[in-house]
């Protein structure tokens, strides 16, 4: 198959002077620039392109555009492989590699095809009926089903290509560059409005590129090229070819997927493969066209059954002869031009089978001239052939169209059957916008109707999408829509508009005869089984037949939304573009109600699949989420620290020495901080500068304890509650001046706390004069901790009196550090999170590394030990200090933690009233306790449940859970914190900790394991 045997000598928009080679299922073939993979496959005589989803029936190409249900392939290889791409949308390039899907071992011989013979076992809903029991076997069933039924396989390795996102604003977004869209963009552009014109095709022109219609006396595709050239020159117009508008969201926000480099072997240097556009348009014109429906009849899925419009496109645009001998079967006018194009391309046209009682007179003379037989008021009842069409069987239907009058009349041999079941306006995007649709019985389709979004979405529909199927209407109404949209966006044309284009054939088509399902040739007129003519497919991609839909109706399904999910009709990647209307018609008929009463399913974005690559854009790998590093990060890195992400921050977790594992490093660090001196980077703690005459009053309302009495120079620990009385954050706040405070928050909660403060200041207490500013990143903080902390600090600030009397616990001072950066001024807080003597030294962020190095150098004689977050957790838990979000979970009150003394009885504060609600006062609320396992070497996992007995087997009523669990070198054993029902009164009680099928005995204790002598536990004042 090296020669393109089905290629026409002349015509089409392909460049025959260049040959492109490509590979399909390992076979090398050739095409030309201008081809799609689909047109090139057809030109090479490839009929069989895939196996169907459920029955593995052989399938060929049916369409020429985005509505193609069968021709899904896996495109490219390795990390660039993309499954489920429509061959009709793949622009051919030299070296293209594609393979068919859902077949094994090969496309031509597929073992799964046995499903077709076993089809009585697979009716609608067969999953639910067959695989109900035993439930334990479902994973086995699922594995088999997944292998047998399905689409393509995803790439096995990472995608090497780049994707990007772009935001844009415009006055008028025109979707679709067919005749209506081009006219709309042309007229809108002439007003000076900023216009974006997006079309899924590589070339502008839409249907004009394929249907041979003429405008102003020349081929329509030439007119389109002329308008396209003018638009390309206009500075206010942006053309986006190869771009699918995938989603239409509120307030005219639309998402577009531009296939920037999918038509190349690989993207050029610096070029993204795809670009996701997010466009905010003042006005939208949807010129999304219409899609041709197939007719539902027995074996209508055989390779060689195609849309009449698709066949025209293959001939006129791609110069491909899609068969040798054709029959056309239609219920509307559009098959006639297709029949003539086929004849002119050298295809023998055996017959046009017209379902209506009257054929359109204007085509008859030319039909006769070409010698094409016309069979009026007849139907194709079934198709013969398996891997390719071999013929059709013809009969006459009764008036209602639900039965055959006289059985088979004759058989016609052919290898191509062109179906035209009428046109479905493509209104997915309009429906997504919130607009309603209304049924048009004459046209047999939904048209734009009134809907909820009429008021808030500025959208117009033009051309075939609006039910205006005639070319002249598309041109005239498209131009009007474009002009009006620009006017509504505030742009008016000066002078006369462009010349109005005139279609050569201005006649509007006659209405179709909607027969949703053609009865089979068998006795019952049904099309259920092979003996009765074969399966009549409605949804080709999901393998749903007319019989499946009727079965669903018989089984009691009434809502189309339920029928959809039960039968899976319309649930493929094509979103039922060719099947939805036929499915509705068949269900309405089966239920004996009018179509509008059945309604239509909801259209949801995306209109066409959008790759994860495009959705992620540049936010992959290290750019997935911003990373925050402290000024001392470089030192930690050089010291070999292992890092822990805390929110977006990277914090040192521990600093392993050679040969040390995590447990050994954490033990060493925890021990050093209580025996000599440790140093921790505390920069990430949230810091908020609070200023204003009402600052103290404000803190009084925010925190549970009182703040008015705090002297300048003092610090105080505070708890913040939500209005529900539950702990929200905690931290130490220092009074820098009469109306000036320095608040610290937990690392992960800093942003939320600032939002919280702002919301109360702005919305509830605007009379308070208070200003809050985040200063987290303005200060670097080194926390010095341990019995030698004072001696070490004294060396750095010789002029500061560090004696306990002059610099007591819970105060702060400023001091110059003569040896650091030439006398750096620091804020030193005598506060800590370990119960040990501690100083937190704050310097302007840029000086952090200098300070850190000075402390490390001066501390050498005390064997100063940098410690990470894990040692910090051990140290704070030893003295029973809680971590918000670890001991608390949004249902924890101060009393639950034994911090009831932190709650002021004198003043009101946020959440206070909730603390006296009956539920907050329950005696059996979970409360903070300590736990010591009987086995001092056993460290229980955090999250383990506390139970009464020794039997860990479920069902069990848990009485609480472990919140923190560590090994402590200072205690010489393990210990844990837990929340236990009624825990305050249960110290000393024996209990069991259940995990991994074990029940470990332990004793409940007070949540405090150490009492360091140097710092009194007075923070709870």
């Amino acid at each position, binding site marked *: 198959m090296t020669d393109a045997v089905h290629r026409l000598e002349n015509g089409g928009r392909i460049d025959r002077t260049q040959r492109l080679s490509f590979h399909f299922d390992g076979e090398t073939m050739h095409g030309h620039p201008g081809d799609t993979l689909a047109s090139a496959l057809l030109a090479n005589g490839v009929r069989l392109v895939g196996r169907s989803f459920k029955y593995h029936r052989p399938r060929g190409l049916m369409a020429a555009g985005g509505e193609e249900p069968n021709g899904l392939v896996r495109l490219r290889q390795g990390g660039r492989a993309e499954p489920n791409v429509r061959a009709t949308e793949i622009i051919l390039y030299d070296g293209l590699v594609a393979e068919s899907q859902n077949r094994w071992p090969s496309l031509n011989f597929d073992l799964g095809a046995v499903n077709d013979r076993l089809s009585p076992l697979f009716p609608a809903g067969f999953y639910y009926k067959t695989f109900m029991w035993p439930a334990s076997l479902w994973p086995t069933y699922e594995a088999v089903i997944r292998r047998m039924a399905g689409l393509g396989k995803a790439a096995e390795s990472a995608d090497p290509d780049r994707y990007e996102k772009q935001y844009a604003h415009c006055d008028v977004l025109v979707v679709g560059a067919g005749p209506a869209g081009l006219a709309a963009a042309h007229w809108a552009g002439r007003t000076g409005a900023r216009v974006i014109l997006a079309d899924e095709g590589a070339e502008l022109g839409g249907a004009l590129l394929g249907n041979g219609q003429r405008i102003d006396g020349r081929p329509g595709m030439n007119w389109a090229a002329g308008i396209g050239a003018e638009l390309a020159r206009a500075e206010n117009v942006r053309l986006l070819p190869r771009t699918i508008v995938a989603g239409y*969201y*509120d*307030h*005219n*926000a639309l998402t577009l997927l531009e296939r920037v480099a999918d038509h190349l072997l690989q993207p050029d240097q610096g070029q993204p493969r795809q670009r996701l556009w*997010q466009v*905010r348009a003042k006005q939208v014109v949807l010129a999304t066209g219409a899609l041709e429906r197939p007719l539902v009849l027995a074996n209508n899925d055989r390779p060689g059954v195609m849309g009449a419009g698709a066949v025209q496109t293959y001939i006129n645009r791609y110069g491909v002869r899609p068969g040798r001998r054709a029959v056309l079967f239609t219920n509307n006018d559009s098959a006639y031009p297709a029949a003539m194009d086929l004849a002119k391309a050298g295809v023998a046209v055996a017959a046009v089978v017209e379902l209506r009682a009257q054929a359109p007179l204007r085509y008859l003379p030319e039909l006769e001239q070409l010698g094409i037989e016309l069979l009026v008021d007849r139907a194709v009842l079934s198709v013969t052939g398996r891997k390719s069409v071999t013929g059709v069987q013809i009969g006459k239907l009764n008036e209602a169209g639900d039965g055959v009058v006289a059985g088979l009349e004759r058989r016609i041999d052919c290898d191509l059957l062109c179906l035209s079941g009428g046109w479905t306006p493509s209104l997915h995007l309009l429906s997504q916008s*919130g607009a309603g649709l209304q049924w048009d019985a004459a046209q047999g389709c939904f048209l734009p109707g009134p809907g*909820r*979004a009429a*008021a*808030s979405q500025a959208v117009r529909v033009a051309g075939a999408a609006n039910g205006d199927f005639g070319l002249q209407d598309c041109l005239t109404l498209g131009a009007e829509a474009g002009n009006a949209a620009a006017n509504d966006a505030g742009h008016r044309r000066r002078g006369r508009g462009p010349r109005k284009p005139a279609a050569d054939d201005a006649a509007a088509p006659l209405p179709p005869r909607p027969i949703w399902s053609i009865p089979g040739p068998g006795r019952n007129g049904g099309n259920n089984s092979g003996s009765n003519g074969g399966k009549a497919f409605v949804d080709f991609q999901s393998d749903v037949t007319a019989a499946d839909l009727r079965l669903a109706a018989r089984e009691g399904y009434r809502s189309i939304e339920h029928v959809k999910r039960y039968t899976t009709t319309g649930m493929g990647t094509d979103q039922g573009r060719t099947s939805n209307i036929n499915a509705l018609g068949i269900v309405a008929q089966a239920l004996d109600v009018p179509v509008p009463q059945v309604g239509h399913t909801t259209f949801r974005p995306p209109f066409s699949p959008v790759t994860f690559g495009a959705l992620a854009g540049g936010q992959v790998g290290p750019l997935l989420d911003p990373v925050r590093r402290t000024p001392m990060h470089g030192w930690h890195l050089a010291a070999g620290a292992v890092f822990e992400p805390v929110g977006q921050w990277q914090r040192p977790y521990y600093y392993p020495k050679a040969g040390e594992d995590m447990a050994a490093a954490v033990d060493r660090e925890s021990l050093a901080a209580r025996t000599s001196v440790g140093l921790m980077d505390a920069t990430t703690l949230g810091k908020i500068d609070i200023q204003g005459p009402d600052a103290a009053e404000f803190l009084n309302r925010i925190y549970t304890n009182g703040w008015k009495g705090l002297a300048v120079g003092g610090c105080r620990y505070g708890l913040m509650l939500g*209005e*529900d009385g539950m702990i929200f954050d905690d931290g130490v706040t220092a009074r820098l001046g009469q109306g000036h405070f320095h608040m610290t928050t937990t690392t992960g909660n800093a942003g939320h706390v600032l*939002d919280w403060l*702002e*919301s109360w200041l*702005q*919305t*509830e207490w*605007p009379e308070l004069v208070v200003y809050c500013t985040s200063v987290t990143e303005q200060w670097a903080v080194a926390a010095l901790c341990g019995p030698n902390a004072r001696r070490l600090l004294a060396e750095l600030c010789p002029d500061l009196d560090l004696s306990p009397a002059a610099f007591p616990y819970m105060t702060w001072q400023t001091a110059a550090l003569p040896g650091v950066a030439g006398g750096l001024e620091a804020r030193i807080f005598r506060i800590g999170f370990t119960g040990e003597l501690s100083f937190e030294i704050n310097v302007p962020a840029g000086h952090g590394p200098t300070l850190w190095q000075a402390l490390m150098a001066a501390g050498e004689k005390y064997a100063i030990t940098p410690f990470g977050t894990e040692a910090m957790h051990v140290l704070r838990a030893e003295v029973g200090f809680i971590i918000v979000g670890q001991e608390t979970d949004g249902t924890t009150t101060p009393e639950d933690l034994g911090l009831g003394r932190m709650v002021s009885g004198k003043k*009101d504060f946020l959440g*206070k*009233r*909730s603390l*006296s*609600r*009956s539920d907050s006062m329950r005696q059996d609320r979970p409360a903070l306790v300590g736990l010591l396992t009987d086995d001092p070497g056993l460290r229980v996992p955090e999250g383990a449940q506390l139970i009464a007995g020794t039997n860990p087997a479920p069902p069990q009523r848990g009485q609480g859970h472990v919140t923190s669990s560590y090994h402590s070198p200072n205690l010489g054993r393990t210990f844990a914190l837990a929340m236990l029902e009624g825990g305050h009164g249960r110290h000393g009680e024996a209990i069991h900790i259940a995990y991994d099928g074990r029940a470990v005995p332990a004793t409940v204790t007070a949540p405090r394991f150490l009492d360091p002598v140097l710092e009194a536990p007075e923070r709870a004042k």
Partner: protein
Amino acid sequence: MLLISCPWCGDRSEEEFSCGGEAHIVRPVTPQDMDDQAWGDYVFMRRNEKGVHFERWRHGNGCGRWFNVARSTVTHEILAIYQVGDDRPEVPE
């Protein structure tokens, strides 16, 4: 994706804002005098309108200011934008 007109910054995309829920809920002046039911209503109970909803929004990734919005929960149309503390504006149902 709503287009919200911040009173200080102008038209911005919804992703710059966060919604703070129902507006015009005034914090009681003397919570300690309220029974559990009344306090619970204040803390937990919110309207769930089908139609016009008066709600608080904050331009968090912008000027940081709070303001009030009247929005139709059916069409997502924004009917009015007004200052915190102002009365509910008259809007068409």
